[in-house]
């Protein structure tokens, strides 16, 4: 069994005490920051990225994977206890989770979230390990035209999931692509759009963009809201374990969520969000058993299903990244940035050139999931304590970590000016109802897209029809068009509005 041998390689890498320690520290730090209201995984990873600079590449990626899972779990905790989703994929968790907390069942809700995430994570990791190898083979059949087409599909996917206006989301992507082009052009060696600033010759630091737009932008809009509607259920958390009845209701929902999440996660464009919404909708359609509360009023299925779908989707969204090197969502875009900093070019060659890294990363995801359940469940009390710390004590600390983090990226104050600029931009985007996630994805894909487009058209001697005459690329573009049409259909349009109404 190849799969087993590969997983064994992975365990050998990720299972070393030092890497286990990094996974553990990553999970803890991720949860610590992720639990802060209004800070989602993207902001968390951006903030903690500098911590991993000094580590060897494998350990750094393992720690980042830990941070990612920790951040997601922390986000769910906040969603359940404070009714404040840190990111769009935990929006649905607030619906039933918060209701459960209000009924004094915060403990079972948190445990359900943790357990369903773990089950989904196990399945997702296995799927990832099983499909990564065959998919890499496919990746080698990809020419520049196919890569272009795939990136376009990915970007369309990001648009489909953005809340609010479709046009604005597309515009944000283009904006991001343009920002990504700032810096030295690899082909001509010419410095583009640098405004004669030598610091911009290497391009705009993506940590500065991510931290500014997601971190500072969010802090400022949080501060401008009053904290009247924040109600933390702290005293009432007692009795962690769900009852046998709960587990009986929950398990089928977890399985449904896992299947749905794994399938949707592979789709480019942020499968995890789509997955959690879809699975919640599915649970709503399933008939209630006797003694069950309707969904939306504190049904445990309403927590378990989206959490498992979300986590399975998060896991399988690594597939396009690791096999094709194309990030399907903003979090993965950050992972690409992290890999590049450690001189790893994500793509099909990672698995052949650097199998330890590849399988180590996959196994460490599973370890990360395990850590979450063995560590975070007992530590829920601590995370809750953190939630009771008033926001006005927390945000200066967040600002400080952002500033130190961004400074250490290049040891230059220039990045601090940049992050302030992007913080301003982030706040303006929020005010104008322009979602920043597509911008970040475009920002990362900008140079890649230009490079492949250039190559594809050079091979075709400037003939644009190459994108529709090559079958694979045509099929991908058709998929993108289909996605776009789906969103534009009136029926789906109203559904999409409904799904994002809690934003």
């Amino acid at each position, binding site marked *: 069994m190849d799969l087993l041998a590969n997983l064994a390689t992975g365990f050998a890498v990720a299972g070393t005490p030092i890497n286990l320690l990094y996974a553990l520290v990553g999970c803890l730090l991720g949860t610590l920051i992720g639990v802060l209201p209004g800070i989602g995984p993207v902001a968390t990873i951006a903030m903690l990225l500098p*911590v991993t600079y*000094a580590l060897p590449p494998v350990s750094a990626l393992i720690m980042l994977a830990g941070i990612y899972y920790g951040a997601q779990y922390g986000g769910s905790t906040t969603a359940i206890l404070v009714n404040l989703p840190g990111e769009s994929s935990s929006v649905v968790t607030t619906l039933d989770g918060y209701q459960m907390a209000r009924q004094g069942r915060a403990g079972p809700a948190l445990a359900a979230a943790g357990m369903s995430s773990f089950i989904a994570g196990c399945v997702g990791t296995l799927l990832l390990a099983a499909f990564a190898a065959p998919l890499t083979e496919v990746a080698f059949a990809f020419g520049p035209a196919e890569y272009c087409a795939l990136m376009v599909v990915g970007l369309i996917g990001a648009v489909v999931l953005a809340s609010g*206006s479709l*046009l*604005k989301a*597309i*515009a944000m992507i*283009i*904006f991001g*692509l*343009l920002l990504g*082009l700032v810096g030295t*052009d690899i*082909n*001509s060696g*010419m410095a*583009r*759009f640098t405004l004669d600033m030598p610091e911009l010759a290497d391009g705009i630091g993506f940590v500065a963009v991510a931290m500014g737009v997601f971190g*500072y932008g969010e*802090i*400022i*809009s949080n*501060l*401008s809201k009053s904290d009247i509607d924040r109600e933390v259920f702290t005293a009432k958390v007692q009795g962690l374990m769900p009852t046998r009845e709960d587990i009986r209701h929950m398990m089928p929902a977890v399985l449904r969520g896992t299947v749905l999440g794994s399938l949707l996660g592979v789709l480019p464009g942020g499968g995890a969000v789509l997955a959690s919404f879809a699975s919640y909708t599915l649970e709503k359609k399933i008939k209630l058993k006797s003694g069950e509360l309707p969904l939306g009023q504190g049904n445990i299925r309403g927590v378990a299903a989206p959490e498992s779908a979300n986590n399975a989707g998060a896991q399988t969204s690594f597939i396009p990244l690791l096999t094709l090197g194309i990030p399907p969502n903003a979090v993965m875009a950050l992972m690409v940035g992290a890999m590049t900093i450690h001189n790893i070019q994500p793509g099909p060659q990672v698995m052949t050139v650097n199998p330890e890294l590849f399988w180590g990363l996959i196994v460490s995801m599973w370890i990360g999931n395990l850590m979450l359940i063995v560590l975070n469940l007992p530590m829920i009390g601590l995370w809750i304590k953190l939630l009771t710390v008033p926001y*006005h*004590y927390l*945000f*200066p*600390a967040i*600002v*400080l970590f*952002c*500033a*130190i983090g961004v*400074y*250490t990226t290049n*040891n*230059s*104050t220039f990045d*601090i*000016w940049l*992050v*302030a600029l992007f*913080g*301003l931009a982030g*706040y*303006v985007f929020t*005010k*104008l*109802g322009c979602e920043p996630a597509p911008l970040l994805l475009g920002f990362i894909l900008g140079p890649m897209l*230009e490079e492949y*487009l*250039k190559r594809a*058209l*050079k091979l*075709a*001697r*400037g*003939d*644009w029809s190459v994108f529709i005459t090559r079958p694979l690329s045509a099929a991908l573009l058709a998929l993108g068009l289909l996605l776009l049409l789906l969103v534009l259909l009136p029926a789906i349009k109203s559904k999409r509005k409904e799904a994002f109404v809690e934003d």
Partner: protein
Amino acid sequence: MSIKSQKDFVSGVMFTVTGAAFAWHAATAYSVGTAGQMGPGYFPMVLGLVLVLLGSFIMFFALVVETPDGGSIGDFAWRPLFCILGANVLFGVLLGGLPMWGLPSMGLMVAIYALCGLALLADPNRFTLRRWLVLASILAAGSYLVFIKSLGLTMPVWPFFLTP
């Protein structure tokens, strides 16, 4: 014709202006080339033009399509905006100094106190001198231990006149 959605109209303007700036700069400063032989200006110019087009559409719809509350942007939270971004910039100035203006580096410790003070002022009702000093001291001690001692990051810690 009146603006039906303030948010969309302003976003449309923002996109159009940005797109135009990029496209114009790409077309004038760099060689554009052809599709088969792209110059450094080709891709940004095309993207810029697409952005202009999208921005114009957004502006057009903002003038035509009715929105429930007029798509009002609402008030800007000037105070938090200024304090948070200002705290960040002040931190940078104190940490690294500004050689351009002859400002020497004051180091991490001073920078942390300054950052905390300005950030806390974002919410003036809650600001007290004691709160500031306690929070800043905790963060300064914590940062020293974590970033300097354990992670070994290199940055100026103490003011220039205390460093040999």
